[in-house]
């Protein structure tokens, strides 16, 4: 089965729909039309650029180029995690905790999938490596951002409760365990919901894409299951790691609550 190519004219029809929506929102004064058009324009430019980058990367497949691409993706995702924090850690910790957690979890899961499960030759074949890492980083990023944000904002709100437990002789870990549990829950909820709804409420995007590209449905389903599990593991371990690091950082060596470490 051959992919049906899209012409610029095909895309323009879809773009007209977005413009019609922008026109409508501006007529009723919802103040959304500008944001809508800017975002749509960004989508076009960013995706065209990444299309060029991937085309070039596939043509000049070399480990160092793939590694460079992976590094850039990681750094951008790390920035995104930090930007989503209402109360982020001061200094390098603000960037470091999320980035380190994403690196260890998403990269480990991707490399495991590439070397042991899918095993393309070579294992870093960009056609497999980059999309896989992208999906893992994107989801891990969401989980870590949600978990860390919940951890720090709740600790800020419940500072008296945490200190109340400390003064009664609880350790730093005991004093914040309820908050840590909540933070882990909010980081993992999106992927748990996605797994539960997969195939019934929603057809996952990757699977849909493969089917559109002509892959037999059962092959697409198997890939989707693999990716879901990888994402779950990556998000789960990454979120738990980030929350542990973040919670530890909220206390100093004398187990005092140090909210001055948050910006």
């Amino acid at each position: 089965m051959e992919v049906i190519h899209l012409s610029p004219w095909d895309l323009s029809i879809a773009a007209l729909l977005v413009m019609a929506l922008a026109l409508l929102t501006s007529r009723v004064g919802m103040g959304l039309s500008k944001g809508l058009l800017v975002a749509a324009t960004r989508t076009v430019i960013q995706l065209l650029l990444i299309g060029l980058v991937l085309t070039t990367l596939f043509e000049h497949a070399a480990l160092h180029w793939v590694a460079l691409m992976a590094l850039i993706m990681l750094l951008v995702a790390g920035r995104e995690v930090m930007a989503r924090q209402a109360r982020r850690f001061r200094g390098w910790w603000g960037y470091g905790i999320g980035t380190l957690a994403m690196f260890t979890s998403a990269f480990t899961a991707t490399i495991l999938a590439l070397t042991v499960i899918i095993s393309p030759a070579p294992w870093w074949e960009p056609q497999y490596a980059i999309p896989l890492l992208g999906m893992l980083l994107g989801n891990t990023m969401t989980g870590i951002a949600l978990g860390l944000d919940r951890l720090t904002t709740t600790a800020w709100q419940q500072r008296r409760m945490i200190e109340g437990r400390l003064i009664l002789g609880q350790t730093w870990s005991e004093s914040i365990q309820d908050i840590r549990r909540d933070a882990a829950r909010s980081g993992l909820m999106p992927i748990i919901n996605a797994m539960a709804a997969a195939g019934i409420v929603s057809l996952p995007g990757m699977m849909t894409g493969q089917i559109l590209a002509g892959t037999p449905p059962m092959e697409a389903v198997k890939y989707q299951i693999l990716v879901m599990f990888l994402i779950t593991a990556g998000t789960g371990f990454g979120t738990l790691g980030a929350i542990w690091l973040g919670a530890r950082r909220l206390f100093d060596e004398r187990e005092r609550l140090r909210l001055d470490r948050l910006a």
Partner: protein
Amino acid sequence: MDAPTFAVTDGPLLQLTGLQSDHMGPVDLSLAPGELLLIAGPSGAGKSLLLRAIADLDPLRGQVWLDNQLRETILPALWRRQVGYLPAEPVWWADTVDAHFTGVQDDWLEQLGFQSDVRQWEVERLSSGERQRLALARMLGNGPRVLLLDEATANLDPDNTLRMESLVRGYMTERQAGAIWVSHDHEQRQRLGGRLLMMELGRLAEPALESRA
């Protein structure tokens, strides 16, 4: 001041040397076993900061010793059990009273005016005065050597104030525990007796106006 019936160690029970932050100190202080130290002073003078500092809740310069043992040689959680801090508005986090208790004796609860079934009470239903009184029992359950009481009886009626005072005094005598009690109430200070120090602008000083009890 009550004369201790026996000395646990030769030296002071609690000793502070050069305890200092940007808003408080330097404070040098020494507390003997069984001794009650009263601290008064205008709000914002740093009284709560001092108690928080002794309980090791804020990073500060200076040294704190308990029974001639430097604070940094004792695990933080263990330190805070031995140096019990009772804030003006104690926090309760679990559903029932009992979930917060370890080592709380029934006769303490009785002295505070409760039946022993108070353990099964829901925290949500406690009045602020009940929370305050039960928090004293909760803290004593850790068996602290030093009590740090921050306006511990503020907002209590006279009967309950007396109950808390007598429990603290009884505990101190029984265990040779020391206490630092921040109190605004002149009559309470007269009743309790003990050494009085004034805190002003983050410094401790001998009282100029109020005579010693």
